[in-house]
């Protein structure tokens, strides 16, 4: 049994919070492996960067993508950054911390449609992408050549690698699959309670996925959908034993009028950190531990969508959406312009 008191002493966020404001809003932010750069993807086709190794100033955005950027991954060798957008383009940048990184390669039609997530293999030789075309695709990080295709059939929302070079995916019906890189399905995990059909609408699916350091446990997360339209339901994490496919534990992290677990992460010390969002303005940062029923830490936040632990283990960056983001009216700024939303990226410091 994990000692949650000990964990809390090490990882409870302190009161000092640094806020990096992204405007217009972003959904996803990830620290680079070197810890010097925070990279975010948003809704405007731009890859945003902040120099968090220095003064946290925003660096020039990387352009060339379209629409939404939901895929961000790094490869330590050569400071490679991979980004992917909702129009199916995958891009590899060399020297992501430089003022103007060069495009090492890019594939404008990596997927037919929305690329949902990217992940680099433990060997650092393959970058995997998944998308609404129902496929997981594998690419050689060196030149972008295709090295594998895993046909899921349904929209693949999330993926993660295991230490042994196999990988797991999670789809829009709440089915997670353990794959060999040659496309063989080793096992399925039934997280279908994260999905429902409400009238015409397919609701939910695996919206967050993580594997522990040893590759023994899989966390599939989302919500237990109660209805379509304004999708709500308790944010939920389901943990599986990868070897047997059995569900080991589930955590219900909110009420019926909350919404998704937007991101989940297995910490090397065995606990999980996750963020949730709901409506309007609801959300939180949560820690749970295997074998422990209730979260051992919760902090309310406004619509928290992603979290990223800094390589130093002493910071966690959480992308939120500012309060008051909802509303049917016509919010205007002082000049009378229509207002969009912004995303405070809250960087919490922990004792470590």
């Amino acid at each position, binding site marked *: 049994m994990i000692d949650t008191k000990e964990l809390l002493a090490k990882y409870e966020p302190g009161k000092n919070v640094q806020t990096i404001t992204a405007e217009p809003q972003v959904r996803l932010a990830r620290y680079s492996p070197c810890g010097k750069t925070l990279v975010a993807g948003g*809704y405007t086709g731009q890859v945003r960067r902040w120099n968090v190794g220095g003064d946290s100033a925003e660096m020039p955005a990387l352009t060339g993508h379209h629409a939404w950027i939901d895929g961000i991954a790094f490869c330590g060798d050569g400071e490679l950054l991979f980004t992917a957008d909702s129009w199916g383009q995958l891009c590899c940048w060399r020297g992501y911390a430089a003022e103007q990184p060069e495009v090492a390669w890019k594939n404008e039609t990596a997927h037919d449609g929305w690329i949902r997530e990217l992940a680099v293999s433990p060997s650092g030789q393959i970058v995997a992408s998944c998308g609404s075309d129902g496929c997981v695709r594998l690419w050689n990080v060196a030149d972008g050549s295709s090295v594998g295709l895993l046909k899921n059939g349904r929209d693949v929302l999330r993926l993660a690698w295991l230490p042994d070079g196999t990988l797991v995916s999670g789809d829009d019906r709440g089915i997670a699959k353990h794959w060999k890189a040659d496309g063989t399905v080793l096992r399925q995990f039934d997280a279908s309670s994260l999905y429902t059909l409400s009238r015409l609408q397919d609701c939910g699916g695996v919206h967050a996925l993580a594997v522990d350091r040893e590759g023994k446990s899989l966390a599939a997360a989302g919500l237990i959908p109660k209805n379509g339209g304004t999708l709500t339901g308790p944010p939920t994490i389901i943990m599986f034993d990868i070897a047997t496919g059995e569900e080991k534990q589930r955590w219900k992290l909110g009420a019926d009028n909350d919404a998704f677990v937007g991101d989940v992460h297995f910490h090397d010390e065995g606990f999980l950190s996750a963020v949730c969002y709901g*409506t309007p303005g609801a959300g939180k940062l949560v820690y749970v531990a295997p074998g422990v029923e209730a979260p051992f830490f919760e902090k309310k936040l406004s619509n928290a969508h992603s979290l990223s632990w800094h390589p130093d283990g002493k910071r966690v960056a959480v992308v939120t959406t500012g309060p008051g983001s909802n509303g*049917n009216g016509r919010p205007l700024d002082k000049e009378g312009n229509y207002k969009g939303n912004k995303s405070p990226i809250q960087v919490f410091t922990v004792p470590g």
Partner: protein
Amino acid sequence: MNYSHLCTPHEHALSRRQILGAAAGAAGALGLGSLLRPAIAEELKKKHKQVLFIWIDGGMSQLESWDPKPNTTFGGPFRAIQTSVTGVHVSELLPRSAKIMDKLAIIRSVHTKDNSHSAGVARIQRGDPKNRGVTYPFFGSAVAKLLGPGDSGLPPYVWIKPGSGGFIHGDAGFIGPKYGAVAFGDGKPPENLVAPPEVPPHDADERAALQAAANARYAKGRGKEMGEANSYVYEVARTLMRRQDLFDSTKFDPKDVERYGTHEFGRHMLQARKMLEAGVTFVKVNSYGWDTHGDNFNGHLSLMPKFDQAFASIVSDLDDRGMLENVLVIAMSEFGRTPRINGHIGRDHWPEAWSVAMAGCGLARGAVVGETNEQGTYVKTDEYDIGALFHTWFSCLGIDTKKVNYDNGGQPLPLAHEDMHVVKELLA
């Protein structure tokens, strides 16, 4: 005089079949006689215009459908695709509709007043006229009164919807409850529609006579309109007993079922085509669950293809059958959705700038009217409120809103907002 709208227990014992709640409409009782000059009425009757009204309840996003703004701040994740009309693009979530854009007419400059569902649904479907101290009819009821049931003997206004059915007299407003909607819950016929086999025909006639007597007694204690409406639903039930083929989906062509979609909306749209083919004047089909304040984009990714599949199929089928010339097709919601994306990754209610898709019956084919600004936040051409669309639709149906009025007990009332006018660019 105050009339009771409620049944007494005694009356209820005799009128249990009232729950059939269906309509066939006595042709003589409905129609244009009291509204139009006879020559016009005769002409309309000859052409028998019809309406398919597709109600996307909750609010379809214009940005994920007819007015995409790809790669802009509020444009969302999806691409725009070329349609069969050069230079016109729609969301990639509408691939089938894109192929038949040359049959459609789109207006992208709809600007209405209400951003709440509770008021917006009725306000839009009643055409949001000036306040005259009366409740205006829904478009379906108005058309039922103005065009009548045609020669089919079927009710002039039917509503195919998820959930329960019944006779929805509230739609009719001041023009009288008998112009209400006959709603088929999940497309199913009213319960107890089939006469028990043990009832011989002459018994059925006797029962009908008894029913007529009961109706007369019911009408005694009420206003003329309530009495008429009560009789009307029984006539409807008798008519529908003869048209059970309209409800027997096992006899629908499996290829049609596949084309329209095996989902609820596909089934209902195919049944709508059957109703139109059978001669029903106004068919409304509802789809619920479009109020995507949360997870709007995955929601539309799931919802839109189902809409697209059934919508493109029915427009194509009506065209192939030569019916589109006389069937006005309208697909709309009570408003659009906000450009800005909220923290729940949803879009909220937006009446400021949204789109309506139409086809057939005097509308210009391939027309795209109006334009929103680069970000899709506001209309940058002339704005059109729902009143203008009502004028346009009545015009398509051959009803001149400058010449025809409702008769509210001697008080003439305009059919649509008198400060608005036909959107001429939409007309052929």
